[in-house]
């Protein structure tokens, strides 16, 4: 029976080539979109699951509540580790670490130098995260503080094919570390990425500021991870650890610290905290694109339904005959479903090809490494279910509709598809176009929001501005470096600071200022220690007062505040007023107010910031002279850096690029929404094209008669297009408020956001109508141009 069904289905496909092509292409595109989104979603959910014990692993976080805000941070003080280890039953391992992955250090082997991200971790880190060792073992790797483990890629980069075990690496050109282990490269779908690890003991022994860290509860500069005993849950542990910091540290009490756990399973998708609970994060986008994937698939299925029911007159006679020779309705339903499953199956093969072709660009855009798991039998089982599901979904309506025909009416030849059939079809077209138009609107809004934030004045000039970490000998050689850079002629201006232009690394508290109310809390303020020439180099302008002098020792009691800080503390005539902060021992004098500069998120208001004149700093900023060739300039600069910092490779960033990275997520969302909107409208139009062809064909005789009676091409075009354009207009009216509602919600994420005006909706409607007109005009004009004599004679 099935064989018979499939045979007919196959012949039907061959018989109606254009119709079949539209159906298969549309379904294939829809299935490809859903498939690629499906693979992406699976990839997102696969994060951090490559380690055996991932379900029992947690990062320890700290939640604070103050008068003005509450927030959750990963930065903790070391003493907590010891308490967790010794006093809390149910915890198997505890590891304190620094910011693993974000600590950039210089690894030197002979003449090879690498400046890569890694970190320092307690030996139990390797027991918690059982990274597979290629050489060495988790047990022994950190026995000696002066050891280092590398991932394979870093090992190969440093040692080539030679065995790296027990070889010596010069670390920051200061210490010698022995390679005691090689781990497999960390997969891309892991939140924690690093190239090397050193024992935490090494960090404590070699970094001066670490001396008191082990006993200081207020030095929240570290991360902490735990593994729970098998069978122990986070819920059981939570009440036992909640108040540990509060109990042990009197100084921390005002901020009401609560120790909380963040499950490794949630790291990637649930990283936004509200009231100490992971409430969302990237999962929102995963959900959003899952919905889009389903919508696009639905749009493709609607095409199939519409074209099949539209063509029902052609199939009606077959239904009648079959019923008259003994077919039951269930036989016919089965037949039509078999047909749609066959078409879906063919479409699925195309969709796999499409996905395979699209994956490289998709991976580049979203920075992933998704591949179709051809070798995985689960994939094929999944595909099979996918085909069945899509086939049954797309085929259900045609099957039930077509099989319901009465054989007598059909065979008498009086059968006409009535209004009853075309109404659901119209509803489906409206549904299709509503989805497509909503996607278009979303794309436009996302781009508007990005553009809006990008065009926001930054308060500094990023043009030709470069940043390099102040590593190795640079801090000591800073003055000489600066002079050489300037005298080389390719650099216009040089400055140093404790934070790069596009970030603020440290926050302090502004405790006293004139006019502060008694019960007012201190202000959390971004603190930047800057060299002289800082504002000039960055292109920031002083609103009042004056810049720091060129001798930093003159300025030890002077600070410059930004406008936001002045506004926050409500200071009138700030110049020469005294304030107190925890960056200096005594009160300091405000010597200047600088205009707000956008150093953190481009979507939030500029936060209060304080600038203090200091030596050293973490970053060197320098602006290229105008009209120099960038490549040549970088070569020259490279040489100068090499002279003053020979052990380190020269690594630089353009501030422009760094700034643009802040829009990565939004640009990604915009790009994906754009691509999917394009595909949705393409598939919808494909369906419309088919419907228009059908309508034109169905009305050939009518058009012939009308033409004989004197209708012009324009009359005929209007006749055939009017209905469709009306449907698209209705879709615009439905899509606009729905899109408005969701986008308004999305924009709430951003403090600095556009307000949605009517323009987008009008524009999207216009675009949709133009696309519709182009799609159907082809058929309408073709019908209008047909010689009426021909079409009438064939009747």
């Amino acid at each position, binding site marked *: *029976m099935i064989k*018979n069904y499939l045979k*007919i289905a196959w012949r*039907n496909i061959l018989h109606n080539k254009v119709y079949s092509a539209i159906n298969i292409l549309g379904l294939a595109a829809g299935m490809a979109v859903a498939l690629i989104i499906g693979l992406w979603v699976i990839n997102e959910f696969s994060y951090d699951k490559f380690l055996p014990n991932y379900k029992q692993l947690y990062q320890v976080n700290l939640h604070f509540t103050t008068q003005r805000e509450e927030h959750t941070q990963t930065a903790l003080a070391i003493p907590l580790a010891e308490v967790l280890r010794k006093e809390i039953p149910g915890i198997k391992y505890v590891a304190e670490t620094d910011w693993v992955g974000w600590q950039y250090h210089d690894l030197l082997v002979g003449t090879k130098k690498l400046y890569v991200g890694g970190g320092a971790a307690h030996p139990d880190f390797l027991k918690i995260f059982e990274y597979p060792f290629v050489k060495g073992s988790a047990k022994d790797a950190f026995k000696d503080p002066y050891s280092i483990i590398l991932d394979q890629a870093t090992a190969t980069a440093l040692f080539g094919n030679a065995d790296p075990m027990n070889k010596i690496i010069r670390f920051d050109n200061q210490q010698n570390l022995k390679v005691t282990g090689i781990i497999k490269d960390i997969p891309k779908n892991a939140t924690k990425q690093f190239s090397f690890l050193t024992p935490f003991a090494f960090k404590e022994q070699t970094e001066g500021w670490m001396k008191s860290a082990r006993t200081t509860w207020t030095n929240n500069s570290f991360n902490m991870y735990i593994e729970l005993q098998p069978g122990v849950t986070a819920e059981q542990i939570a009440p036992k650890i909640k108040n540990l910091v509060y109990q042990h540290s009197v100084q921390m009490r005002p901020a009401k610290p609560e120790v909380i756990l963040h499950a490794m399973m949630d790291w990637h998708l649930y990283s936004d905290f509200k009231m100490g609970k992971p409430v969302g994060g990237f999962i929102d986008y995963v959900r959003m694109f899952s919905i889009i994937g389903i919508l696009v698939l639905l749009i493709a299925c609607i095409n199939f339904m519409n074209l099949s029911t539209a063509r029902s007159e052609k199939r009606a006679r*077959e239904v009648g005959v079959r019923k*008259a*020779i*003994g077919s039951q309705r269930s036989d016919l339903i089965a037949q039509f479903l078999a047909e749609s499953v066959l078409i879906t199956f063919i479409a699925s093969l195309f969709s796999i090809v499409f996905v395979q072709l699209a994956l490289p660009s998709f991976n580049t855009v979203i920075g992933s490494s998704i591949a179709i798991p051809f070798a995985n039998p689960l994939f094929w089982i999944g595909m099979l279910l996918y085909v069945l599901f899509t086939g049954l979904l797309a085929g259900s309506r045609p099957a039930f509709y077509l099989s319901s025909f009465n054989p007598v009416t059909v*065979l*008498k030849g009086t059968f006409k598809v009535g209004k009853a059939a075309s109404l659901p079809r119209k509803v489906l077209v409206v549904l299709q176009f509503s989805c497509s138009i909503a996607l278009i609107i979303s794309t436009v809004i996302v781009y508007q929001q990005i553009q809006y934030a990008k065009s926001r004045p930054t308060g500094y000039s990023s043009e030709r501005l470069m940043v390099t970490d102040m590593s190795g000998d640079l801090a000591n050689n800073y003055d000489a470096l600066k002079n050489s850079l300037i005298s080389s002629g390719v650099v216009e201006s040089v400055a140093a600071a404790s934070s790069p232009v596009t970030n603020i690394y440290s926050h302090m508290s502004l405790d006293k200022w004139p006019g502060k109310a008694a019960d007012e809390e201190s202000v959390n303020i971004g603190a930047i220690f800057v060299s002289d020439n800082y504002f000039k180099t960055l292109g920031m302008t002083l609103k009042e007062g004056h810049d720091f002098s060129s001798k930093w020792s003159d300025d030890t009691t002077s600070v410059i505040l930004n406008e936001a800080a002045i506004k926050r503390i409500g200071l009138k005539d700030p110049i020469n007023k005294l304030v107190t902060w925890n960056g200096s021992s005594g009160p300091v004098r405000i010597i200047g107010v600088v205009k707000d500069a956008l150093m953190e998120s481009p979507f939030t208001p500029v936060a209060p910031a304080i600038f203090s004149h200091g030596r050293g700093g973490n970053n060197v900023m320098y602006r290229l002279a105008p009209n120099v060739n960038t490549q040549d300039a970088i070569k020259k600069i490279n040489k100068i850096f090499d002279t003053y910092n020979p052990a380190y490779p020269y690594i630089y960033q353009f501030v422009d690029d760094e700034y643009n990275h802040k829009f990565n997520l939004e640009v990604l969302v915009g790009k994906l929404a754009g691509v999917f909107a394009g595909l949705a409208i393409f598939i919808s139009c494909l369906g419309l094209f088919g419907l228009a062809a059908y309508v034109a064909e169905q009305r050939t005789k009518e058009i012939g008669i009308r033409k004989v009676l004197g209708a012009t091409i324009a009359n005929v075009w209007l006749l055939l297009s009017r209905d469709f354009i009306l449907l698209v207009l209705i879709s615009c009216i439905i899509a606009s408020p729905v899109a408005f509602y969701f986008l308004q919600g999305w924009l709430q994420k951003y403090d600095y956001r556009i307000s949605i005006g009517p323009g987008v909706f009008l524009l999207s409607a216009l675009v949709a109508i133009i696309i519709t007109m182009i799609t159907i005009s082809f058929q309408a004009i073709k019908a209008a141009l047909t010689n009426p004599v021909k079409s009438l004679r064939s009747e």
Partner: protein
Amino acid sequence: MLSLQHISKYYQVSGLKNYVLNDLSLEVDEGEFISIMGPSGSGKSTLLNVIGMLDDPSDGYHYFAGHAVHQLKEKQRSALYKQYIGFVFQAYHLIDELTVYENIETPLIYQDFKSSERKAMVADILDKFNIVGKKDLFPAQLSGGQQQLVGIARALIAKPKMLLADEPTGNLNSKQGEEIMELFRKLNREDKVTIIQVTHSEKNAEYGTRIINLLDGKIASSKKL
């Protein structure tokens, strides 16, 4: 074998009942060959459709092979139909996408015959109708007469007890028509198939054992030959 009692069929046209079959009663015995005649619009096709259970009467009692058809559910009716009845249409109504062979085979598929049985039965009937050479052609590649032969072969493949034919020769020339009528007579006499045909041709009607004249949905006359 068949008994229609007080059968009426009407269409509601702007509130008025428009009777197509009007209180019509008819008895048909096994082995009869009935020709139904009457002017266009008199309800011949409607009557045939009712007999063939493709159409429901609005009123009346319908007994067939010992079953009260008017009380049966769709599924049972369909089973009864499959078991007893073959239908031939004026417009042949072959399925364009199927070959001659497959068209004839289709009813057997619906009746769950095994593949080997189907092969034998189709081969048999192709042979009987002398169309073995055409078995792999599609309907569009056949003449009208040939198509109707296939239609009849298809109606007969499952060995029905009753053959219903609505103007089977309507689209054929007289020679082709005569051949079909000869075939019907043979089926009726040798294979004991009960036949009810609708026809406009006196000559073709004469092949039957009884002629019924229909007028305005009523039997105007009935004459045994």
